[in-house]
């Protein structure tokens, strides 16, 4: 076992496993879950349907990308959208849905002159649409990339044999891609199953997730109930996350893609689904800027209500995000190396936080803070929480980064007498730097976007961008929320694209 594996094992053991063990020891879960049966079943059903719709949307866009020859610029834009979804703040997405689908929202303003009025907020449909459009990019990210790389030779061979496009799709492409389709379905299921901000905002009381219910139970001091639901959620999430992870690493016949120009259905459907993704995102980004009163109100009464201004919110947001990103990048740099050298435990431990939702981990931290430490450490606990939740993704990036380091160069350096530090600094570091930058910026974006942990651990004593937007939008300061949100989304996107730009040569 390499040193890198030990680092991540120690980190995850101390900051993820121990708090959870402590939580369950302090508040033993009750096994009388019959009270929660309908909630659990509804949560599973909602996530299953949301993921199915996301899968259909994702497949449609993936099909379009892998079968149509389009400009590289348009292709890169669609890929960027799929990546952005991973870091687009949940609270901003929810705000986007309110702006678009609200009773007086954009959609109704367009449709009302035609006598049509849509009233879907707080319904099952709203939750499904919200989650589906939020997760289509996840499907696109996992499936689309593989589909585009699918060897064109196989398709050509089938065409020569007289296969119709449907036959090629159903008998060749889908069977080859099935592990990726299942994996992306499971990821979309997981995101929908543990959804927080979207459900809190547009879900209403009928369609809560376990994540939201755990948060409510913690707020109401029902720690035993929260602990019970935590255990149920962890079991379901662990099964789905493990299956998704196993399936995603399957090999498949890659090669040069084969593009066609036939058919108009796939571009039209792809356009519809892409619009569904982009409309809430763009509305969320632009609404505050477009409404001249929004910023005026934010400065007149928004800061006053929040009890702090833009600079203090920025200070708190980055005081948590930067150290969290540093920790996540450092830990994943060593764990990624271990994984690239075949250390299985490193991969397993770094993916454990995926199986533990943010609310659950924040709840566990809170129980440790109350018992052993002081609540004044809550900003530090948030740093560690955010580092933990960013770890799985930054580990994946760093593992890929380490894969690009040729083993023979390291060996040559060692033969030349370089010690491990010298080898790392002068051989490995320049090669993995782009991956480190990407892991760092992505971790910052994840931390800035996170809401549930901040709500639980900040204790109302400080605000980050996401919690400030949430507080404004849920307390009669909607316009102010849109203004702050526009700036917030701009910052998150700016950081994300800066990372992409700096690592273009990767």
């Amino acid at each position, binding site marked *: 076992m390499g040193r890198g594996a030990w680092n991540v094992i120690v980190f995850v053991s101390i900051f993820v496993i121990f708090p959870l063990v402590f939580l369950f020891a302090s508040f033993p879960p009750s096994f009388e879950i019959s009270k929660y049966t*309908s*909630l659990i079943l509804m949560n599973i059903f909602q996530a299953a349907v949301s993921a199915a719709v996301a899968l259909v949307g994702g497949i449609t866009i993936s099909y379009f990308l892998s079968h149509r020859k389009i400009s590289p610029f348009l292709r890169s834009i669609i890929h960027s959208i799929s990546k952005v979804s991973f870091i687009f703040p949940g609270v901003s997405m929810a705000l986007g849905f309110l702006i678009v689908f*609200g*009773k*007086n929202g954009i959609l109704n303003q367009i449709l009302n002159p035609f006598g049509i009025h849509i*009233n879907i*907020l*707080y319904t099952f449909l709203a939750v499904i649409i919200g989650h589906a459009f939020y997760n289509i990019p996840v499907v696109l990210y996992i499936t689309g990339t593989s589909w585009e790389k699918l060897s064109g030779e196989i398709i050509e061979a089938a065409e020569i044999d007289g296969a119709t496009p449907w036959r090629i799709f159903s008998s060749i492409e889908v069977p080859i891609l099935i592990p990726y389709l299942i994996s992306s379905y499971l990821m979309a299921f997981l995101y929908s199953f543990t959804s927080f901000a979207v459900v809190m905002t547009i879900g*209403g*009381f*009928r369609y809560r997730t376990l994540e939201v219910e755990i948060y*409510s139970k913690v*707020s*109401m*001091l029902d720690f035993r109930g929260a602990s019970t639901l935590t255990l149920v959620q962890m079991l379901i999430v662990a099964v789905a996350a493990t299956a998704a992870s196993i399936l995603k690493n399957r090999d498949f016949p890659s090669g040069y893609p084969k593009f066609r120009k036939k058919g108009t259905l796939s571009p039209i459907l792809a356009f519809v689904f892409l619009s569904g993704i982009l409309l809430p995102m763009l509305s969320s980004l632009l609404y505050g800027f477009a409404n001249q009163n929004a910023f005026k109100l934010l400065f007149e*009464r928004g800061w*006053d*209500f929040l*009890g702090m201004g833009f600079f203090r919110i920025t200070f708190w947001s980055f*005081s948590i995000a930067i*150290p969290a990103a*540093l920790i996540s990048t450092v830990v994943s740099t060593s764990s990624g190396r271990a994984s690239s050298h075949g250390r299985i435990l490193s991969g397993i431990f770094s993916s454990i936080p995926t199986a533990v939702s943010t609310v659950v981990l924040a709840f566990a931290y*809170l129980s440790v803070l*109350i018992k052993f430490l*002081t*609540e*004044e*450490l*809550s*900003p*530090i606990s948030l740093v560690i929480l955010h580092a933990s939740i960013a770890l799985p993704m930054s580990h994946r990036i760093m593992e890929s980064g380490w894969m690009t380091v040729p083993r023979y160069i390291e060996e040559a350096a060692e033969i030349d007498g370089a010690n491990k530090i010298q080898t790392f600094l002068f051989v490995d570091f320049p090669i993995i730097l782009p991956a480190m930058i990407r892991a760092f910026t992505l971790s910052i974006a994840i931390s800035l976007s996170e809401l549930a942990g901040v709500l639980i651990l900040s*204790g*109302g*004593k*400080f605000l980050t961008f996401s919690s400030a937007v949430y*507080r404004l*939008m*849920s*307390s*009669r*300061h*909607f316009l102010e929320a849109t203004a702050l949100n526009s700036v917030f989304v701009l910052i998150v996107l700016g950081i994300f694209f800066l990372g992409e730009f700096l690592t273009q040569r990767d």
Partner: protein
Amino acid sequence: MKRLVFILLLVTVLSFSNLVVYTYDSMVSGLAKDIAPIFESFYGEKVSFVSFGDAGKALSRLIIEGEKTKADIILGLDQNLLLKAEKYGILMKYKPVNYTKIKEALRPKEYLATPFDYGSIAIVYNTKTVKNPPKSFKDLLDPRFRRKIVVEDPRTSSTGLSFLLWTVAVYGEKFTDYWKKLKENLLTITSGWDEAFEMLERGEADIMVSYLTDGAYSYYYYKSTKFLPTVMKEGMFVQIEYVGIVKYTKKLELAKRFIELMLSDYVQEKIPLRQWMFPVTDVKLPEVFRKHVPKVEKILELDPKEISKNLNKWINEWEEALGM
């Protein structure tokens, strides 16, 4: 990293070196703005108002923090949340010097906390979208109000808890039957009053559980009566808000002064137009209150001992009725 940790700790500690008051959102953006400067000029000490959304959440936070809390005062508990605070033993008894200024009917017997305002909760509706408003609990079940009503969660909101108790006062043990029917007309349940009022103002909901003074509020700020309360024929339910000293305070003298300040004419005169509630002392009411707050003929009451004994049971039954 160590330096950053130190700075973070320092900022956190410095933020709480003054009198700390746990409260709810609208207090921070309202009355607190009047209290903070006057408290500072009187006593030379700053006062920080920390909000957790609704009063129920502020109380929960205080209970979670226990003796490690930085809070000296909790502001905005109603008579029902006060029972919970009493159960957890987190308040210090204090009989204010100005006790006799409090209207006799509102004077607390146990001195656990001091009332600072009161008012009736009410069903409030948007006059533009609801032409024939509900006048009774039965009317609220009318299918024309399907998915138009928003109520607050009694587990986190003092307004929501008062509404739950109001239904208990009207229907007794059969209140769950009422909620099962009302569920069909609920658009959603919010965690606090602010969130619900936001929905009413934004036009997402047409009816909400709010306060009898909302018509006066609407007239005062918008010179219109867009939102009006309706007086329910079964009777109304009064909510009293309290301010209490946290048992673990290290600034007891300052905390006592804060309580006295809440009963001063200065703060009591601000109550109507800041809190949109009635003052607990005999100060003059603004004209908008006299003209635009409907008269209440019948007040419903529940025995505090009954509430204390049954509250958890009622909340559990409410959860079951709504499938929560």
